[in-house]
């Protein structure tokens, strides 16, 4: 035992006790910011300094007691030094910080108030460190960070996750995840310990405000206590779970009830615990076909749905599966599958807020977790859970995905088995670069979740070639060609990819000549198109022209404004030609005296393709947009199109009654459509109808050639 004096009081404590703890035992509270009882003391904030009679003060949290020590914790000299330290920190602090705003408990601001500091006299922060919004669960404000190292010790010492550390030096020092990656891109598993440890608003809970999952009779709130007993929540901070209370519920669904409906918007994912569910697409798989009837007599033509075989369209994919937001895919011929315990579905809707891709109905009584994105994020980053998901995916969907690529159809079951084991599942956060144009190509990718933006650099900017979604693939051109990426691939949202290594890819094309031929054909075609596009861009000096996407179009609808009297005959004609739903709005971009009427204009960045839950909208090689026949009519593309070029075409079909399983009735379904240039007619009806010869269907390259100075 060691005897010492603290503020005049005799104290006897075991050897090895810190002065901080010795004082606390005597009821003397010493202020601190960097010290937490459950973490190794580091003595960096210096607020807990005390006077031991030496030349300089000691940080009491790291200073062991010594026999006969005379400690003064609260002299004017000590308090003044503490006040100055607080004033220094507050000068750089974004008061009120996120924590203060959220829960009013920023420890720095509280100590500042207690010390009577109103306006810090020191200069304000001169070097902004910025914010990081990449994590789904935790908001990072580096400017509110006081480098107390509490988060670092929480991450490494308490949770053994080894993600967080100090970076840089001196005034520019800060905390960083991995190699200074955005938190969401890092190896962080969202355990929440750093956020719980943080004394300021540097790390705060994103607390998905107002989105507590409505707890109906069938939903049961799960307490943090109970969650912590589940293997997937092992290692997660209990306080963090408590803060996210209500973001996960246990839901009971009775046999026959619907869990979620295709086309609906949502924000949750489901994890099946017990029972079976059926996932299906109830929209008929067909194109909207407008029949060219007798002209004039029946003013209104009829639109019907035509199945693929009776209405084959140019460049249509011959996909045999329809990708959905679950661990299985649906067969094109019979879009129904079964989900069971251990299956997760609704990830895309939950992470990226896209519409539901399919309808899920309880086949038996079902018990499931329904969760918001912050909880899903925790699950997805849990090693055990991920391993289970990966296993599920490899077992049930990978083969479909591989076979969904037409030229992979010839792979032997043996090789598929080999790939199932050797492929790697990789995750990317929004905005993260997957491959950069010009860099060496090392892998072939299949998209599992999310959207990947494929773009190319041109003089004057970037051109988006495609948004790839589940079931799509990329990377073959680079591997087959010069070994260099020909396009830049970026994760648009939360993306998961299946990575096939260069070695496996090589082995595959060596072993299966048909696959090689197929891929080479595609690659050659794509390269030729790239070349053609590049030449086009180089020969057209007008960036604006490209940006309007006009040059690339096969044909365009233009209105000569010098002739047009704005009589709207074209609009009416279009409506007449399409069951009363017009696809033409007499508005759009102007070039010289021509108005390029709103018909799909092959945007540089085709936003319509972002978010399609079933991947049924895509670019043709000519860059025009095509809507595949398994569109479920959710309407997202129509909303996304900034030009109003995509319309939803309602029609009545006989389908399964959503309210009475097993029964069928007539219901209204929708299909997305864009201008089809009235391919069913000799001439687009708008052109035909224009009384002033102002509307024309033209090939832009020849039509605008004179305007471009003969180029």
């Amino acid at each position, binding site marked *: 035992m060691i005897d010492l004096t603290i503020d005049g009081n005799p104290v006897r404590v075991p050897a090895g006790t810190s002065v901080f703890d010795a004082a606390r035992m005597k009821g003397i509270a010493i202020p601190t910011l960097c010290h937490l009882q459950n973490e190794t003391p580091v003595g960096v904030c210096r607020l807990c*300094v005390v006077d031991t009679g030496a030349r300089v003060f000691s940080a009491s949290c790291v200073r062991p007691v010594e026999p006969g020590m005379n400690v003064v914790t609260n002299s004017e000299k000590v308090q003044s*030094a503490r006040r*100055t330290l607080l004033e220094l920190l507050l000068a750089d602090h974004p008061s009120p910080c996120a924590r203060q705003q959220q829960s009013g408990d920023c420890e720095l601001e509280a100590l500042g108030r207690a010390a009577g500091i109103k306006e810090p*006299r020191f200069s304000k922060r001169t070097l902004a460190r910025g914010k990081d919004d990449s994590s789904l669960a935790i908001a990072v404000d580096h400017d509110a960070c006081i480098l107390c190292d509490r988060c670092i010790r929480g991450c490494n010492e308490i949770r053994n996750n080894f993600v967080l550390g*100090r970076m840089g030096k001196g*005034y520019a020092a800060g905390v960083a995840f991995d*190699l*200074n990656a955005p938190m969401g891109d890092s190896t962080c598993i969202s355990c929440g310990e750093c956020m719980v440890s943080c004394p300021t608003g540097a790390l705060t809970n994103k607390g998905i405000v107002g989105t507590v999952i409505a707890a109906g009779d069938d939903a049961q709130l799960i307490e943090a206590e109970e969650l912590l007993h589940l293997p997937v929540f092992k290692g997660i901070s209990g306080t963090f779970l408590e803060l996210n209370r209500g973001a996960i519920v246990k839901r009971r669904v009775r046999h026959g009830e619907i869990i979620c409906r295709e086309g609906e918007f949502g924000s949750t994912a489901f994890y099946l615990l017990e029972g079976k569910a059926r996932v299906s697409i109830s929209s008929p798989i067909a194109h909207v076909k407008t029949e060219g009837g007798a002209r004039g007599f029946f003013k209104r033509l009829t639109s019907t749905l035509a199945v693929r075989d009776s209405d084959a369209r140019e460049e249509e994919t011959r996909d045999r599966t329809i990708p959905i937001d679950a661990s299985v895919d649906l067969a094109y011929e019979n879009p129904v599958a079964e989900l069971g315990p251990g299956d997760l579905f609704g990830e895309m809707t939950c992470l990226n807020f896209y519409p539901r891709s399919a309808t899920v109905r309880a086949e038996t009584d079902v018990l499931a977790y329904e969760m918001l994105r912050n909880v899903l994020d925790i699950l997805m980053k849990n090693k055990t859970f991920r391993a289970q998901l990966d296993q599920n995916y490899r077992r049930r969907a990978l083969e479909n995905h591989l076979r969904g690529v037409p030229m992979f159809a010839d792979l032997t079951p043996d090789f598929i088995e080999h790939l199932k084991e050797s492929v790697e599942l990789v995750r990317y956060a929004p905005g993260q670069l997957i491959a950069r144009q010009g860099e060496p190509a090392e892998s072939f990718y299949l998209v599992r979740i999310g959207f990947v933006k494929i773009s190319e650099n041109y003089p004057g900017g970037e051109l988006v070639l495609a948004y790839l979604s589940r079931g799509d693939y990329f990377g073959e051109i680079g591997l087959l060609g010069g070994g260099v990426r020909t396009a830049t691939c970026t994760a648009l949202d939360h993306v998961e990819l299946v990575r096939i290594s260069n070695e496996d890819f090589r082995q595959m094309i060596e072993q299966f000549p048909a696959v090689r031929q197929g891929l080479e054909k595609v690659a050659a075609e794509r390269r030729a198109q790239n070349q053609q596009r590049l030449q086009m861009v180089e020969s057209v000096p007008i960036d604006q022209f490209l940006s309007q996407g006009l040059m690339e179009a096969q044909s365009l609808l233009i209105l000569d404004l010098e002739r047009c009297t704005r009589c709207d005959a074209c609009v009416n004609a279009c409506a007449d030609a399409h069951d009363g739903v017009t696809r033409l709005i007499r508005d759009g971009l102007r070039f010289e005296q021509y108005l390029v009427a709103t018909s799909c204009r092959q945007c540089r960045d085709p936003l319509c393709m972002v978010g399609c839950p079933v991947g049924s909208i895509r670019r043709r090689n000519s860059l025009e947009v095509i809507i595949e026949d398994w569109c479920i009519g959710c309407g997202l593309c129509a909303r996304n199109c900034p030009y109003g070029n995509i319309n939803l075409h309602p029609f009545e079909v006989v389908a399964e009654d959503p309210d009475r399983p097993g029964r069928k009735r007539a219901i209204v379904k929708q299909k997305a459509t864009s201008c089809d240039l009235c391919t069913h007619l000799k001439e687009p009806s708008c052109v035909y109808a224009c009384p002033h010869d102002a509307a024309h269907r033209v090939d832009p390259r020849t039509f605008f050639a004179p305007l471009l100075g003969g180029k």
Partner: protein
Amino acid sequence: MIFDDLRAIQLRCGYLPAAELQALSKGTQTPLYQIHSVASFYPHFQLTEPLRADVRVCADMSCHLNGACELRAALQQRFASAHSGEVALREVSCLGRCDHAPAASINDYIFTDLDPERAEALIRAAIQGAPLHGPHPEQTRTTCASDPYAGAEPYGVVRKLAQTRDWDGVLAELKASELRGMGGAGFPTEMKWSLVRKMPGAEKYVVCNADESEPGTIKDRFILSHLPHLVIEGMIVAGFVTGAKKATIYIRHEYRLQEEILGEEIRRCYRSGILGKKILGSDLDFDLDIFVSPGGYICGEESALLEAMEGKRAEPRNKPPFPGQAGLWQKPTVINNVETFANVPQILARGVEWFKAQGQNGSKGLKFVGVSGHVAHPGVYEVPMGTPMSKVIFGHAGGVRGGRRLKAFAPSGPSSGYLPASMVDVRLDFKALADAGSMLGSGAIVVCDEETCMLDMALNAVRFYRNESCGKCVPCRVGSQKMADLLVKWTQGRISEAEYRADLALLEELSEAMRLTSICGLGQIAPAPVTSVLKHFREEVDAHVLKGQCPSGACHSPAGLTRGAPRVGIRP
């Protein structure tokens, strides 16, 4: 060792690409954050691809006094039109070439006595990828009064001790000699060694701190070049006395030549049985190697140095425990400065009486001092302890350059603060300088002539500490920045008296807090230069702040102020 891995990557790739660091993390089972936290701490490591010419002009005291600002401005102008991908021009902290100022490093090669023409030619060569540096010139060793072996066989002390094994005798002689640490703090050497000797356990270390980085300090560079055998012998004796069997010389990476000289001397020792197992046939073992610092003034702080040797960020430890109790790898460690070790064989070979007689005016021993700044003959001089400063400056160093008058001098770089010319007779001695409100420190005498602006020098010193703060503790990390901000405001001039008074009070509070609460000497001493300038040159500061005038004329003309253009006091 993580630094070796990082160096290997940097050598191969020119910098540290993320993919390489990821592979390193996997290969060595080191978390990514750990790799990044050290790689981003040390200036030697580059996380981004370097430009073709990476030019770093020294910004500290001696170079600052000798046209570093002008050199930087001239280069900036000359390469303003260079492709942005070719030349990176920035400031760097003291390169240890204060006697040949201004100095700059170009692609890691250090060049001295630079003028804009020569620097431009070198940079152009670097852009074209031409080799910048030939092999090191052959160095001839200067004979020093300190060397007991001048011309004769060295290591006599080790030879004798290997026979007599009179460790207590060594400690007694060191105690009698009153030898104190020569790195700055001046801690009695015998006490340090006795502490380590008494510590239990077989695993102990000896470390030589050859990381001299205090602006103006060049004496260790000289000692390493000319008396490496004394340093090594001192370390072996420390090992004998304390029972340590392993030793390391921690040398700054800017001392490549000295690293080679030391390496050669160490190899010679191994060949002749002075180092290694069973030294000179005895049962004594002692191994010695060199650790090259990845950079930063803070590494000279002894506990930060040990952290660096352990492959971590060089952040000073909270003390106690001191290195003597828990040093390298938490084992008892003797850590001394180059000059301290070099003093040991002198004392043991020639006796305490000889050592004491070398000093003057009651001081003991000889001292190496570096003299730089505005002197006619900058360089390293070996002088008796107790020599008046005036004799060093006006005698050895040839007085103030260009026939100008002396205005101020720093007895030991920025840490000692500035003393006015009126105090130039102060003796070179621990106590005398402490009484003068300064310190003997590492003997880095920096001389300022009458045209020097002292507010500018104060700001220069504060910026040095700000740049070199490791960032571990709040007072130093934030305080040094706020202090620099405050001085910048002052140099811009024309502040109301009330605001100035408030600023002075705030500065006093800040200085006090930094002195009392910083973890290590860097933060504790950082306010010293400003405090000394306010003490001895207050009128000059007042003129800047209240009237917008620079009495010495070193700052921009006050006329500039009215046009709102360049400020008084901040040199480009």
